[in-house]
């Protein structure tokens, strides 16, 4: 089971992502953007890690989305292989049209991840980059999506975010309704009890309906703003989380990578 962890100029989460991939028992290697795109067909799954590809020039993810390797990834997506985009990886998947993935497969861009706007009681209280741990609620049924394959609906995950552009907006009529109906909204920001409260600090970036992660219709491609690879060991959790006291245990984010592995096994 071979996973390519994609590396664009400016990517900066590839090393910890590779650790995550390998620790759950998959083979993995870094795949530099200027390698021959044809080599990608030899892999069983893909992770586009976080960072600032091309320094977020023009807007986050757009320049990387035009690289030849992304066309090759589209081919692999059609084959049903799992692709997980984390943070900047999510932004790249949106800009390349792989997410949410139009019904007709046109590759049209159907949404944007705009600048964070933190709103509380109708007022903008903060803007821009933000790093903190957040609570996520899994809103899709298990087996719906590659990267949350083994996670039950309603399960809560504590993972960190660190981004400036994660505010999901769209002008495509009916898109949000469709994402909800088809269970393509995989994670939402919530409070510690799993309640969705659509304002800061719970909705941490102003995203429509507190959406933190979505998948495509087929469920094999997932994009998420939070970083599961940074919540991979219990010791990485914030001080006030009681699980931190059991440092040898897995962290909540590990289930995303375990899901990917299980998804590949089931679909093999």
């Amino acid at each position: 089971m071979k996973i390519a962890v994609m590396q664009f100029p400016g990517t900066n989460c590839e090393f910890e992502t590779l650790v995550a991939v390998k620790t759950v028992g998959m083979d993995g290697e870094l795949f530099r953007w200027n390698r021959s795109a044809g080599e990608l067909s030899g892999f069983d799954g893909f992770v586009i890690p976080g960072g600032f590809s091309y320094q977020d020039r023009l807007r986050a993810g757009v320049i990387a989305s035009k690289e030849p390797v992304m066309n090759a990834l589209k081919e692999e997506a059609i084959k049903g292989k799992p692709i997980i985009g984390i943070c900047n990886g999510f932004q790249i998947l949106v800009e390349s049209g792989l997410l949410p993935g139009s019904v007709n497969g046109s590759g049209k861009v159907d949404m944007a991840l705009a600048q964070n706007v933190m709103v509380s009681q109708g007022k903008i209280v903060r803007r821009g980059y933000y790093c903190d741990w957040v609570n996520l609620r899994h809103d899709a049924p298990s087996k719906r999506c590659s990267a949350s394959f083994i996670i039950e609906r309603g399960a809560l995950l504590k993972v960190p975010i660190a981004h400036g552009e994660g505010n999901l907006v769209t002008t495509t009529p009916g898109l949000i309704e469709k994402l909800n109906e088809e269970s393509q909204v995989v994670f939402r920001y919530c409070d510690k009890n799993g309640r969705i409260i659509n304002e800061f600090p719970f909705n941490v970036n102003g995203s429509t309906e507190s959406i933190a992660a979505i998948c495509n219709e087929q469920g094999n491609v997932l994009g998420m703003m939070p970083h599961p690879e940074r919540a991979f060991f219990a010791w990485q959790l914030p001080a006030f989380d009681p699980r931190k006291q059991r440092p040898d245990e897995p962290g909540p984010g590990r289930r995303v990578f375990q899901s990917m592995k299980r998804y590949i096994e089931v679909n093999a």
Partner: protein
Amino acid sequence: MKIIGLSDPEVEASLRNAGIGMSVAEARSIAEVLGRDPTLTELFCYDAMWSEHCSYKSSRATLKEFLPTDGPNVVMGPVEDSGIVAIDERWCVVISHESHNHPSQILPNEGAATGIGGIVRDVNCMGATVIATADPLRFGNPYGSKASKVRWVAEGVVDGIWQYGNALGVPNMGGDIVFNDSFDDNCLVNVVSIGIVQRDQIIRSRAPPLAGERGYDVILIGKPTDASGLGGVTFASEALREEDEETNRGAVQIPDPFLKNVLFKANADLFSLTREEGIEIGFKDLGGGGFTCATSEMGSAGGFGMEINLDDMHKADDFPAEVLSIAETQERFLIVSPPELREKILKIYNEDWDLPNVYEGARASVVGKINTGDRFTVSYKGEIVCDVPIQHLTQGIRYQREEKERIISLAEPEMPEPEDYNEVLLKILSSPNIASREHVYRYYDTEVMGNAVIRPGEADAGLIAPVRGEKFGVALAVDSNPFYGRISPYWGGATAVAEAMRNVAAIGAVPSTLTDCLNYGNPEKPEAFWEFREGVKGLAESCKKLYLKGYEDQQLPVPIVSGNVSFYNESPQGSVDPSPVVACVGIMKDFSKAITMELKAAGDKLFLIGPRFDELGGSEYYRTILGVTGANVPIVRFDLERNMIYAVIDAIEEGLLAAAHDISNGGLAASVAEMALTRPAKFGVELDLDNVQGSDNGMRTDKILFSESSGFVLEAKPGKEARLVELLKSYNLEPMLIGKVSNKRRIVMSRAGNAVADLELDGARNAWTTGLAEAMR
């Protein structure tokens, strides 16, 4: 340029016209050594190399006289870009600490970003993986007469730091911010970076043995050289005048974290290439003094000469030789390597990592050769533009500056005790110097790399676990209190070391090394130079008397392995408060034993160590509530301090503590409140001040609560109290049981059975969490 035969005023005029800052005497001494008039390029090169920043011409003698730089754990002291200390047999920590004060005052965003960009290069060029940065910042008064400018600077600096560090992908794990009037016209932006490297994979910043005999290549990599930052180093060595601001702006460099991110990965490939081939190279970053500094220092450190051809340098435009020689274009490194590696090295940068397509004009170019001579020779467009003795250029010059004590009149205030301690406490908690730093650190990516164990806001120090599969953790804390430095530059230095070590100890880490960034006024003024010397003496005294834990029987000092001196932090309105900023690296054998400062469980007992003394000079209470500085500055009682630090480390190692927090700004009251207010802020506290040592002999309540005498507040794990008391006593400490964690969401402090303060937790938290955002709005 003609010097020989001209009068002093004539030489002075032509130096200034050319934009060269050196003195006439310096110019004459160069002409004398060369035996002819120097070229323009030569004068520019000497000017950069002999600047205060590159040569430490005013400070070196003092640093050498006092600072301990060696120790059993020291792998490399302050000789190259960073210092190195051992973690264990295999792994080492690399640390560097610098200032970027002047550029940040002029252009806060670029200035601060370049500071981060420069300091991470210093660490990376030792062959290390950069694992963290920290940023001690000093800004002017956000409510003073220059509030608008101060806030513009503060906002721009914070933006510059996060924009660079986050994009590069290095977590910011600590720092501090202090506001006071003395920084109105001179902010301080200090930057610290740490990395890790295996002991046998350290790369030196010098031409390796036989480089001359075998004609090693000099390879320049990174951004194309331009005119940016021209004169930046000399400008960092001159006092700031507001009317010069427009011209000074040209001296700030343009940082690019994206290119740096790619360069770091290419450098990693270079390091593994040299390991595979088993060939030693020299590697150095280009910082202050630009190309000339990096090349000549590499050659001279190896004992060789070199020939450079500027025609072969990749450049952004057709600049004159003196510009190419000393421009401080960012994101560049220099390699000295054998010719047989040339093609492989060029391929790493120009093809594998595709520098020319990542950044227009960026690449790796062979620009010169090492030789066995003793000259630094540069040619350009068919002319020799520089031909000087390389050691003469790099060894710089020394000045013995005069010192004279600065006499200031100081007095202790005579004031009645406050009637409403709730109001006082709320005011202190919301003061910009005490309030939670959350507003700032939420901009910093503390999680990238996945190594964070304890992050900003959770404890007195940050902690990282940099290597998967290894149990050790690396702790980092910074400190310096300008208000103490103002009263006593000596105790300002001594307390900075003690507090930085306390911070590291409070999570359970053993202080392993220190760095110092010494920020002072104009050293040509005897009072400023006296402040500098006093500060260095204070630092040194603490290092020597607090001992390296594990070697206390030999009384070995905690070594200072890296540092930086920043003079001329002054404007016509005056100089900054003496600010010897200290960073402390601590090592934990097992990072999972580390503890944080938030209260853990209702019913837990709270102990205080460190008696309260009547030494509130420079305290938050005196300044914020009474509006005075005072005279009795906190001092370091070395035996007590050492015993407290060691005891806390041992108690954490033994698993006796649930939480610990050191006492500093705001005193006992602020420290206890912070333990209750830190997330998740679930518990209150009940404090009984009768048990605080100091109160028996009638010490006033305000002095007990707000004295900034050194100490710790410790939350004992239930059932471990007796053992904790026993351990503390074995260090000759008098543990004081001062209260307990409570289920009521209140902070209650009582004396003689009466509540002197009783704050509702949410209200206190609101004051504490909004104070900084208000000051930076």
